[in-house]
């Protein structure tokens, strides 16, 4: 099936074969060092507009989370219907103490979520467009043991 990322320049694409891992792409302000995700054209800290590309750390710890227990309205484009909708977890993952990035939390029962849990960036199929293209997006899943 043909596939594409939900947006260009957000994460490693195509998804690298293990043991390589996907990362998120941010921007770093040359004058002040502030990092943004997604890449921003101007710096939210100092207001300058000299931003350069940077790869964000692939792992981090869970800063906070909640559950999404109702089907979002548009602009959400997920594949569920009211009948098939299952609550999901969403959180902010603190990537190496640099930036906290929001994303869906995959492969984990919300009951098992704990502050400080280790997560890593993943890229997953999200929906299929009307013309049959599989759209992939980023999220986080509990970290696999180091070196695996």
């Amino acid at each position, binding site marked *: 099936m043909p596939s594409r990322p939900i*947006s260009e320049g957000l994460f490693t694409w195509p998804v690298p074969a293990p043991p390589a891992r996907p990362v998120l792409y941010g921007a770093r302000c040359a004058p002040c060092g502030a*990092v943004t995700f997604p890449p921003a054209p101007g710096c939210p800290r100092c207001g300058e507009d000299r931003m350069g590309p940077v790869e964000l750390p692939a792992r981090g710890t869970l*800063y906070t*989370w909640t559950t999404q227990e109702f089907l979002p309205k548009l602009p*959400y484009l997920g594949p569920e219907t009211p009948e098939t909708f299952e609550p999901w977890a969403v959180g*902010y993952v603190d990537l190496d103490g640099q930036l906290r990035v929001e994303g869906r939390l995959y492969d984990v029962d919300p009951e098992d979520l704990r502050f400080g849990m280790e997560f890593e960036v993943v890229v997953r199929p999200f929906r299929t467009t009307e013309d049959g293209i599989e759209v992939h997006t980023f999220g986080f899943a509990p970290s696999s043991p180091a070196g695996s």
Partner: protein
Amino acid sequence: MTDVAIVGVGIYPFGRHKDVTALEMGAAAARAALADAGMRWPDISYAVGGSFEVDIPDAMVAYLGLTGIDFTNVYNGCATAGAALSLGVQAIRSGRHDRVLVVGLDKHPAGAFTADPAGYGCPAWYGEMGLFLTPKFFGMKINRYMHDHGIGSQTLGRVAAKNYANGSLNPNAFRRTPLTVEQIVGSRMVNYPLTQYMFCSPDEGAAAVVLCRGEDARNHSPRPVWIRSVEVRTRRYGAFEVHSPSVPADRVPAPTADAARAAFEAAGVAPGDVDIAQLQDTDAGAEIIHMAEVGLCADGDQERMLAGEETSIGGRLPINTDGGLIANGEPIGASGLRQIHELTLQLQGRAGGRQVPRRPRTGLAHLYGAPGISSVTIVST
């Protein structure tokens, strides 16, 4: 600096009004405020109207009278009423106008607010992924806050139960049926740890205030209430705010804390002087967080304060005495002027069945909304 007095307040009941337009509600609230001030519409030389759903609140002159008045329309998200009030106060302080009407009105469809992420500086994929949702952010913010400061879900339930109880005493409230802590905590989970009955909902309504120069105040009201300060702030870099695909790990205080600090400084009032407060309770967790962010308690004190009913009408520091957003819903443009209406009645001893005993002398009103804006107003007798 010129003193600014509130000499009239009016409200159109919050709720659902099938056959009434937002402009009609706004005009009715304006007329109620004018009557309260003993004024007529031609006495007003400047008006400010705030709304989300109505592009041109000034169109209400069709109902109030075509006097040629200078009329400014504003929209600043959930802090719209604070921005509108700020403009009204500035118009008097600058000496440009003597008598000003500030009115807020809205009429929202049922269900959570939706919008285009692009209008909030967010990328399209953020909405496509299902992340452009305010209730989800509030769940995440209070989840972390409860973890950091030892607050339990019973306290969330107590906040909502208090606000429904207060709403049951308010004839203008949307939700007037008291609910128990158990009913609230046990209702359907929406965004952990927040349940269905812990959230406010968008609805309809209007509220208005009439302001005048301090030296004229007693010509219009036997008990004027003084606006000591109104401050509006947007988020700084590092604040943990709604609709943020990412936030820096070095967290700075929220715009609420910035607006409150500025408002206390401008008013020459300390947080300990506040006798009554109306805080943005978009959800029960928001009231808990905002208690500390505006400076009315330390982080974590809320657990003990709610258990001891300190923020109930008979308590040491009554909060959301008219039921807040939880019982009144949120017609965005009107919500903050409902707070000023309530503070005015309470400071004047006119709040009826929900009157705070030992009449309060200093009150605080607070708004907060997407994508990180807050206003804090301090009033006193």
